[in-house]
């Protein structure tokens, strides 16, 4: 599968993502520029983390108007794979490719830490190498990561098994104390109804290199690899 990683002005995790996809996972990767009008044959498009346009208006709010986003939306509508990490997740919500929104953490502070994630479903392209309820340790780094949606929206997500991960503790306990940022139902990542668009606040690309002492995040890339090899 050919990956495309988009660089928006202010993206700062694009090179980290490319390194993992290319050097660690061995995928083919094309670098996409936000002013481009073509995905260069990428089958799986990644919107990396960072502070696109400085996150000045509201995170992701300006980036969704970048020229390449027209192509991303078309690609997703045709069933193509798209994943947003952190700022990428925020952009996908702003572009309405994923439901809901990401608000300021309830601490009102930026938080960077290792957190535990409980796998909510293994029925997705990005979680199939994980068991349901399996706990993995993946870093977060964001100020606006509190997932919010109206009650019907949340019900629809839960009913259709669209939640990918929830914040928990090392033992998999999901409650208010283990809710990193105040997200509804501790939601850390979701997919759309067609299960081809994915968004998560934690950074799996920061937990995929043995040099860094934690490769739990690699499971997400292995999930994709599994599907491709089938």
């Amino acid at each position, binding site marked *: 599968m050919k990956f495309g990683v988009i660089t928006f002005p202010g993206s*700062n995790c694009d090179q980290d993502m490319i390194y993992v996809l290319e*050097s660690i996972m061995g995928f083919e990767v094309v670098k996409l520029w936000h002013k481009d009008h073509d995905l260069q044959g990428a089958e799986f498009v990644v919107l990396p983390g960072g502070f696109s346009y400085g996150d000045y208006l509201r995170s992701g709010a300006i980036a969704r108007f970048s020229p390449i986003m027209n192509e991303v939306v078309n690609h997703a509508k045709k069933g193509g794979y798209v994943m947003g990490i952190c700022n990428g997740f925020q952009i996908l919500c702003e572009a309405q490719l994923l439901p809901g929104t990401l608000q300021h953490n309830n601490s009102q*502070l*930026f938080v960077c830490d290792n957190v535990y994630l409980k796998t909510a479903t293994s029925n997705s392209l990005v979680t199939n190498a994980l068991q349901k309820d399996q706990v993995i340790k993946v870093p977060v780094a964001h100020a606006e990561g509190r997932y919010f949606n109206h009650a019907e929206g949340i019900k629809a997500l839960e009913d259709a098994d669209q939640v990918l991960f929830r914040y928990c503790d090392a033992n998999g306990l999901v409650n208010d104390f283990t809710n990193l940022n105040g997200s509804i139902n501790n939601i850390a990542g979701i997919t759309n109804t067609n299960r081809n668009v994915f968004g998560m606040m934690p950074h799996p*690309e920061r937990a995929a290199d043995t040099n*860094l002492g*934690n490769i739990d995040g690699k499971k997400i890339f292995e999930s994709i690899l599994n599907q491709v090899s089938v």
Partner: protein
Amino acid sequence: MSSNEPNIEVAKKLGILEEEYHKIVEHLEGREPNFTELSIYAVMWSEHCSYKNSIKYLKTLPRTGPHLLAEAGEENAGLVDIGDGLACAFKIESHNHPSAIEPYQGAATGVGGINRDIFTMGARPVAQLNSLRFGDPSLEKTKWLLKGVVKGIGDYGNSFGVPVLGGEVFFDKSYNTNPLVNAMSVGIVDKGKTISAIAFGEGNPVFIVGSSTGKDGIHGATFASGDLSETSMDDLPAVQVGDPFQEKLLLEASLELAGKDYIIGMQDMGAAGITCSTSEMSEKGGVGMDINLDLVPTRQEGMLPFEILLSESQERMLVVVKKGFENQVTEIFDKWDLNCVQIGVVTKGNTLRYFAKDELVAELPADTLVLGGGAPVYDREYREPAYHQKAKSFTIDSIKEPEDLKAVTEFMVAQPNIASKKWIIKQYDSMVGTINMSTNNPSDAGIVNIKDSNKAIAVTVDCNARYVHTDPQVGCSIAVAEAARNIVCSGGEPSAVTNCCNFGNPYNPEAYWQFVMAIKGMGEACEKFNTPVTGGNVSFYNQTVTKDGDVPVLPTPTIGMIGLVNDKSNITPLGFENEGDHIILLGESKNDINSSEYLRSFHQVELSPAPYFNMDEEYHMQDTLQKLIKAGLINSAHDCADGGLMITLLESSYVNNIGFSIQTKNGIRRDAFLFGEAQGRVVLSVSKNNFDSFKQYCNNNNQIFELIGSVIGSVAIVDGNSIGSIKGLKETYNNSLEKIILN
């Protein structure tokens, strides 16, 4: 030439001394300077830009070493060869004065400035460290300053995208109204792709790139070169405003440029903006420049020439382009939606000429403005303060040994200077760039992964200002030794130093004595540890306003050090790994509680001598430890520093929640054994199987060590008695600072 009749009185208001005014007239061959010219001299000869009161002593520091690619002062930052065709650029800088009155922007622009120093050389910043000093943490003012500084550092660095790999936070009432904010950046560059801060080649175009120029930060360098006082809030416009998004774009554009052969040189605009960059680049290449200020993109209409020249608007660079490559350069900056405008040309001779509205507004010889050229150099009067001798009269016998060590431990763990700084650190992105090897395996220094290589870089900042205050010479040597110790404990070899010298008013003979003696101690230690000083920054005029007058801050010569890890398998964690391992104190216990956090906080003793320190013993210990690590005999290593042995043991326990049992030593007071801060000591854990080899190795090398106990259980045990559970103590350690700050 326009003139608005300046005179000595105007000069004085700009911070120029009478003798300096006469020197300016001399430089201008008898002509009186106009206001614009006077303003230029005022900033360029300010302490901040000229180092006029410090350079004489800074020049005594060791500045050469086998791995140095650029010596101090040659480039924007130090440059060290790290092999495999790579070089490491690194530097530390202060942003104390702006942070004192506008903590958020002051700290943010400090981060921005130091990173520009790195990427203007063509290096990509890969790690950030910071050394912060605040006053009494229970004061509302301190909480406001701390929250603002931390948010400023976080918001800027997180967005810009450089991870924080280390730092220190220290509280002392001397910093009550004058916090210290020292930021260090470390970058990596291909050896052949570095960019120089130089201008040459008559007719080559001069460009300004990046943000537009506004009225912020005018006379900022002058402001930073005066005392902070109660009226300093009136200087608010002297503080700059940061835009990390622009900086990120400027970084990417600059690094694209570094890969090409389109330019002669580039320099960032920090203090004194266009003035400083045009004069320093010209002086270095022995050329002049004609600059048309009307062409500078500005944020507002009607800016006066001196305002454009002195503006310290952030996120700007001066680029000297090779004639004929203007379009290629513009294309790169266009791609990143950044200004890129030609504002002048390089000229023959050494005259800087600035024009506005077709008029020559200033004309000066470049070399008269800069350090090493015509800027003044002073040797100030200094005098040993009375407290220095008084401190020596302290003896440990005057302190009654407490009986309840458990209570002392609980007290110590909760002290702001000892407790975890997690509440602060979590607000910084420490993992962007995927190079931080210390997140999951913490070690004494931060470890930067060099991808696709078996090498890594170890980075640290250190300074115990209490030691420096009581004995500047010894205290500053200790700061260097501790930095080296942290690098060695982590599995690296100390390589080079950048320093950030934060002191009081240089015209105060006692404050100046602290500076002179500290530099002496720094020089001796840098010589001993083979770590040349590659540059840094001096910040004088740091003092706190009290009702009894102004009190200088504790003298704080922060040492930033980098080291090389040649083999990643040498990286050594600070945490205990296996139950059953022996715990060894490498070095020797001393009956010494001098200047310890224990003596200061628990016994409220403010003045005592510096702790035990013997530079030769320390060097020998570090050398032995490097060899022991390379021989694979060490499972963990953590240096004994603030809080002493007990705190060191606990920190080693917290990582994997494993306890320890140790015995104190006959002949050494138990409080000194556990909480004393004698230098030259490291806590190691060694597998039982390796102990014989370890012992033999130390004996053969005449290295003193003490077997003090073993890694065991989940409780801290001293002489058979429980001091508390690791879990409980860790909770106190983790939560104490947050409780104080958010209270």
